[in-house]
């Protein structure tokens, strides 16, 4: 991809989940690590929406946090517009301004003691983009951009419903004029009719300001609606990356296929959901080889030993030995 806005290479994050030192000594236990992400690589082009999907525990949110610098990667590189941003404290403010985040729970992400105007002004003032008076006017303008009223600046978050709060969170994210917004489950806490409003708003803003999104979601239909390209995560690894709509029409990886089969069908095509056996294994002791092999209908000997590497498929990339074998045959 020529000149991607965000490039993630070999991103890995391990968490130390060991018992306290004394317990380890007494029980003769070693340290334990949970690998939340292993060797994740993807690129996001300017103006596109890249979505990461996966079930709980697949490491979606850990990636989001590493990308915006809330967590340090254990290994790997994150490059934003050609500059490394995984180096922690060393990220220049001018670069920080250019990416923002929208969180899942609008009841937790807005400070209940701050007025809405102050919440929206904070990034502007922190980055020193405007003076106090200009920032106030900007906050009022942004509230109108996201479909609220300019007079709402003096209200507190508790005076708003969930959907309206998420609009405030979006206004705050927009206030530093970012190019790139990481949206971590932006509509999961909302009702469907409100979800539709927020998704439509996100699209309108993307067109208006030329935004690039990294969208994290567990909801496949939301992802299908929003994304230009999609990455599917399983147990911390990226199993497939593909163009948006084609992932749904021609899924390659067996896990992607399973996930699509499991989605309840509103279209009432009469399709019986295929029974999927098993659940996501414990990430502290993932199965050897391909992490999906215990649930995979196509698994063979090699899957139990070797971790598959991503290979090019007609619609993108997928990491699967069975696909490789089928290709050779």
């Amino acid at each position, binding site marked *: 991809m020529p000149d991607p806005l965000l490039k993630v290479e070999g991103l890995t994050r391990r968490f130390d989940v060991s018992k306290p030192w004394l317990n380890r000594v007494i029980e003769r236990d070693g340290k334990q690590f949970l690998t939340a992400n292993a060797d994740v690589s993807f690129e996001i082009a300017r103006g596109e929406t890249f979505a990461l999907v996966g079930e709980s525990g697949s490491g979606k949110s850990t990636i989001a946090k590493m990308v915006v610098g809330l967590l340090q990667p254990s290994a790997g590189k994150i490059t934003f517009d050609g500059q490394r941003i995984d180096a922690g404290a060393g990220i220049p403010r001018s670069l920080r301004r250019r990416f923002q985040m929208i969180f899942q729970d609008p009841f937790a992400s807005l400070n209940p003691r701050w007025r809405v105007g102050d919440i929206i002004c904070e990034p502007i003032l922190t980055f020193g983009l405007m003076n106090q008076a200009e920032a106030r006017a900007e906050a009022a303008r942004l509230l109108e951009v996201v479909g609220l009223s300019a007079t709402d600046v003096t209200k507190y978050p508790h005076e708003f419903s969930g959907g309206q709060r998420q609009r405030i969170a979006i206004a705050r994210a927009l206030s530093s004029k970012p190019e790139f917004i990481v949206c971590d489950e932006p509509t999961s806490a909302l009702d*469907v009719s409100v979800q*539709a409003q927020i998704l439509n708003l996100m699209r309108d803003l993307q067109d208006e300001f030329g935004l690039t999104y990294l969208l994290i979601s*567990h909801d496949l*239909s939301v992802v299908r609606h929003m994304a230009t390209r999609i990455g599917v995560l399983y147990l911390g690894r990226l199993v497939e990356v593909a163009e948006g709509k084609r992932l749904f029409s021609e899924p390659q990886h067996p896990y992607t296929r399973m996930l699509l089969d499991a989605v*309840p*069908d*509103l279209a*009432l095509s009469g399709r019986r959901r295929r*029974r*999927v056996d098993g659940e996501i294994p414990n990430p502290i002791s993932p199965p050897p080889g391909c992490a999906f092999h215990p649930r995979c209908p196509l698994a063979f000997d090699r899957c139990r030993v070797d971790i598959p590497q991503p290979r090019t498929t007609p619609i993108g990339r997928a990491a699967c030995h069975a696909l490789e074998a089928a290709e050779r045959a």
Partner: protein
Amino acid sequence: MTDAVTEPLLSVRDLVVEFPTRRGVLRALDRVSFDIMPGEVLGMVGESGAGKSITGASIIGLIEPPGRIAGGEIRLKGERIDNLRPEAMRRVRGRRIGMVFQDPLTSLNPLYTVAQQLIETIRTHMDVSEAEARKRAVALLDRVGIPAAARRIDDYPHHFSGGMRQRVVIALALCAEPELVIADEPTTALDVSVQAQIIEVLKDICAERGAAVMLITHDMGVIAETADRVAVLYAGRMAETGPVREVITEALHPYTAGLMGSIPTLTQETDRLVQIPGSMPRLDAIPPGCAFNPRCEHAFAPCREIRPDLMPQGGGREVACWLYDPAKAGELRDA
């Protein structure tokens, strides 16, 4: 499904549930009526605050005080259960009506093994020996798909994963062979791949035992796959009921139509989702007339003044909307 001869298993008529607060009485449910036939799966949908869970809670007599049933009646096989004394209600709850709640971790007691909880429940409701109860419990766990049930029955709830725990809860709800199971968001806390398994178990096992199911959820996909009929709630009132296929594909009520259009699907080609402006009114600010009128693009004068009740539309469908009887709306308005 609707047979004129059969008597409904559960019949709810004009149910009103109120919560007195310092700032006046809030009506969480306002004249809600519906029936569930024996063996039927009724889906109850609506957005948060629409009154889905309160409906379930009032049927099993578990409304938290100071909330109370302020009007209407609930009949189980013709017998009123909304005014039973707590003792009598306890014999209905669990025995004749089973419950599955959203969060399997809070509906199981963490201090008792699964065996203890199942055996206690079975012996509370049925006159069987401990050994017999245990045998039934193992068979039930096996039926809901817990591998090595005979061994795992002595595990504590925390030994099970979320999906397995929800299976245990289903077993618990079914162990006294109830006639009706109320499942309140049974899969909301689970991942999609596990969700499919749980819905299948719930549906199959209830069909097998002839138990009717009231499935409360905000997930239309789950309803579409599971329910025979669906009831749509809005601001504590019924908006529409009918066979699931018809309601989803050709909704009558403008709210239902908007709700269906706002859900992204895996096959749609449209670029924009239908969006209903605004949000559901708070219980202390429900507009006069139809509760949906300020958000409705088809609203006309009577909608702002007179509240529509459910009106039969044929084919087992009912809708509470003046668009389907403008003449009557006009009459009422003039009167």
